[in-house]
């Protein structure tokens, strides 16, 4: 039967469809939850996890997690970073084996010890980051998964693609190179890939993190289509409003445990505010009050906007880029092409765009890490493009990198030294090339206190700190000693919501105190939360400017997509 699968995909799918129809017919409406004890295998939930436990060195990632995913439902896993969502889906998709617990797929107890085993069991996964080979066409990418037989049956594959695409309600060009598709379309190809062998369960890991608002809307449509065909979707997210928008049921994880679930009836029956409040309390327990104002937890993003700075036109320009260009780097960053922007005192300016559209070049050119090939950068009206990193740092021009573990800190050095990495050799921390331990320690102590870095001591290795505290170390370094203009690159990426809230307050505080911030982020909600004005970066060029206000999100999204099409054409 297996051998014939690929040769006659339509027939197999017909069979699956009839199966799901039969299943629906067999279950009298409304009795689904009532007679759990007497059900036969066909009625069993799509996926059932019982007592899943996984210990990593130093952290209990999953602690006795039990979870049921029914047929044809969108089941949201909601939780902060580090709540155990990723570990759980790694277990389901065969990347990680649990220490204890059972997995049942369609009522049958199974061992999932490889990604292939997961696919064989009908569990397909779409990861957060693309797994497509950019240079190959969509069809070739799909054929990569085929291992049976030597000969590739291209025509059958084409038919299967058309069929799955029709199920999803999307149109996919089979012969387009995967790398040239918009990210939303690439994600659809990933979904096709996950469903290729007739998966009945689809896992989506943070699927919206790379999408424009339009892309998110289209994804929601796809999810509805999937539900109609009886496919179950496990949707992982840390954004509350997304969970509420798509979920039939929500399971909330905190610190590796299931701390609560919101059933369908409750989602439909109560008001958004009630559900939201309950979820926030479940996600954060005691700390709920402290984080409730973070954008990820709000459902009314478009309604409440950051106040526009009225006096902006009169405020002094702190940083000005005029026609700045920089060469591309490898295949990852297109460089910059004639980027001009002005940043005024008290302003928080947002730079929106998908990853890899020149954000890194922009940040590094301003910070002085990368040479520009043309153009001019002025700080307080004075050209600075010839100054090096520490000279610009001294002038108050700072850069909070997005790669805080990769380049923001030196993990083997103590926290204290990490706080002064950009001032090596400068007074009062170094005199005549020799380090002054006493002044380093004194200053480090006060910075650790001021920025609330949770560390056992200032001599602890920076690599031993949690992600949020590492970010606080980086922020303490960049926001101390009179910062004026600060470039924040994805300042809250991967942080828990408490720290996210703190970091955003720091950014606002900087602007209020007469400084200015350039916030580069791929998270549109973050920009809408913080910025008065948002510029859109695409392919290394600024393609438009949007004043924050009603529908700003949609317009930024249009600019991101529109520019992408122009570049591809």
């Amino acid at each position, binding site marked *: 039967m297996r051998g014939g699968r690929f040769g006659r995909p339509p027939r197999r799918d017909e069979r699956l469809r009839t199966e799901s129809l039969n299943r629906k017919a067999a279950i009298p409406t409304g009795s689904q939850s009532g007679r759990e004890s007497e059900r036969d295998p066909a009625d069993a939930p799509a996926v059932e996890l019982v007592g899943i*436990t996984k*210990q990593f*060195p*130093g*952290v*209990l990632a999953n*602690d006795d997690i039990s979870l049921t995913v029914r047929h044809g439902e969108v089941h949201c896993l909601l939780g902060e970073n580090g709540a155990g969502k990723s570990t759980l889906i790694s277990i389901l998709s065969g990347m990680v084996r649990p*220490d*204890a617990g059972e997995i049942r797929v369609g009522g049958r107890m199974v061992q999932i010890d490889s990604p292939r085993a997961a696919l064989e069991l009908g569990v397909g996964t779409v990861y957060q980051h693309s797994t497509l080979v950019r240079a190959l066409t969509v069809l070739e990418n799909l054929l990569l998964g085929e291992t049976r037989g030597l000969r590739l049956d291209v025509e059958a594959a084409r038919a299967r693609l058309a069929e799955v695409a029709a199920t999803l309600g999307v149109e996919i060009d089979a012969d387009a190179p995967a790398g040239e598709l918009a990210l939303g379309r690439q994600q659809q190809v990933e979904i096709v890939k996950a469903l290729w062998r007739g998966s009945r369960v689809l896992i989506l890991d943070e699927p919206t993190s790379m999408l424009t608002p339009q892309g998110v809307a289209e994804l929601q449509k796809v999810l509805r289509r999937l539900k109609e065909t009886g496919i179950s979707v496990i949707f992982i997210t840390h954004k509350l409003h997304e969970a509420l928008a798509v979920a039939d049921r929500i399971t909330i994880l905190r610190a590796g445990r299931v701390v609560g679930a919101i059933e369908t009836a409750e989602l439909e029956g109560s008001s958004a505010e009630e559900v939201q409040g309950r979820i926030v309390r479940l996600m954060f327990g005691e700390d709920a009050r402290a984080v409730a104002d973070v954008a990820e937890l709000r459902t009314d993003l478009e309604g409440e906007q950051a106040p526009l700075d009225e006096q902006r036109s009169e405020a002094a320009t702190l940083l000005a880029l005029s026609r700045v260009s920089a060469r591309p780097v490898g295949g990852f960053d297109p460089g910059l092409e004639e980027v001009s922007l002005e940043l005024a005192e008290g302003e928080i300016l947002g730079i929106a765009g998908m990853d890899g559209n020149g954000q890194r070049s922009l940040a590094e050119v301003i910070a*002085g*890490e990368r040479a520009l090939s043309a153009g001019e950068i002025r700080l307080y009206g004075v050209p600075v493009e010839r100054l*090096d*990193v*520490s000279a610009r*740092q001294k002038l108050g021009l700072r850069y909070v*990198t997005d*790669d805080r573990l*990769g*380049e*923001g*800190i*030196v*993990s*083997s*050095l103590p926290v204290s*030294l990490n706080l002064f*990495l*950009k001032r*090596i*050799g400068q007074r009062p921390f*170094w005199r005549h*090339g*020799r*380090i002054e331990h006493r002044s380093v320690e004194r200053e480090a102590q006060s910075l650790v206190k001021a920025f609330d870095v949770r560390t*056992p*001591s200032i001599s*602890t290795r920076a690599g031993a700190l949690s992600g949020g505290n590492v970010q606080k170390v980086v922020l303490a370094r960049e926001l101390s000693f009179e910062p004026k203009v600060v470039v924040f690159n994805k300042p809250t990426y991967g942080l828990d919501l408490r720290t996210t809230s703190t970091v955003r307050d720091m950014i606002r505080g900087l602007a209020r105190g007469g400084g200015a911030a350039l916030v580069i982020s791929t998270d549109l909600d973050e920009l809408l939360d913080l910025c008065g004005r948002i510029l859109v970066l695409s392919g290394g060029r600024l393609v438009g400017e949007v004043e924050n206000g009603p529908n700003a999100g949609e317009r930024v999204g249009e600019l991101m997509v529109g520019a992408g099409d122009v570049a591809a054409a």
Partner: protein
Amino acid sequence: MTGATTDTALSPETRPLEPIAPSHRFVSDALDVVVRSIVPVLLALGAGAILLLALGRDPITFYSNVWKGGIQLTAWQDSAIRAAPLLLIAVGLVVVFRANIWNLGYNGQFLLGAALISGLGPHLVASEPRWLALLLLFLVAGGAGAAWTLVPALLKARYETNEIITTLMMSFIGVGVANILIKGPFQDPSVNIPQTRVLPLNKMLPSIPGTRIHIGVLVALAAALLVHFVLTRTSFGLRLQILGANPRAARHVGVKVPRLIVMSFLVSGLLVGLAAAADILGTWGYVRANWNPAYGDTVIPFVFLARLNALAVIPFVVFYAVLSTGGDLATQQASLSTDFLLVLVALILLFMTVIEYLGRRRALGASYLTPGLQQALRSPRLRRRTSA
């Protein structure tokens, strides 16, 4: 035994790990250093003893002969003399290894310096006062060693060329050039063997009064102290450490990476060249063609055992110097080849790797012992089963 341990290894460990309190941290760090540095040496000596037994030799006699030949009476002075070039090379390697740069061209750098000063030495000491001639010769050797790193240094700084390959290639060329010099312009015309003229004994490095130890040993010790100070207390040292630990962070915080690469290469080559000067001017007085003591190769394990710490290198190099000086006597007495000493060094490397692996597990929050082993030691039931 194996069956029992695998059983327990599979059982899940669900207890959350307790965080280490900061007050215990210092003690555990100190313990860590001891475990990682000294245990491999002890294990190697133990394994060496077993090997000796297997070869039908008495390990106690062997090791006491090492002690006799390496330390007792005035033998410690020979050990000290032998340690001088080793220590200088070790320190020279510490400098670059700290920056995660692999200068493996030490043989070429060493021999080129050695050949140049054995060729120029006899002329210089004849025309200049002894102190000036020796100083100049030290500078020539150091300069030659440094100059020989320049090509790999610039290639790495400019084009990120892999320095392991370039330094090794330059090393082969350096050894060849040194031999050409010895057989050609520097050949002693009065002998038939390819070697340089021999420095008169009274023109070589002076000894510390009352001993045979030449002042090259002091130079080596001073270099170790100075390098340690520079690496731990100065901005240059910190930049070097950042470059070694995280080159992307180095760029991010504004370290001028290319310049730093060239600087560290030059310092490393300089120290290797000084090692040649100390060895030739203090011990040999001439160089014969195709002579290659390959000090660097022997010293590398100890550089790692010392955790790239210029001070900690001293006891390890001294240990090896004693082992090799005393080992000459001990292997002779036991009618073994002196290569047996290299077996001991290799065993040290082997155990170092094992301890390092276990240490990494521990750094990730686990213990030095694998879970199975731990269970086996802890559970009396298992102990009974293994003994039964």
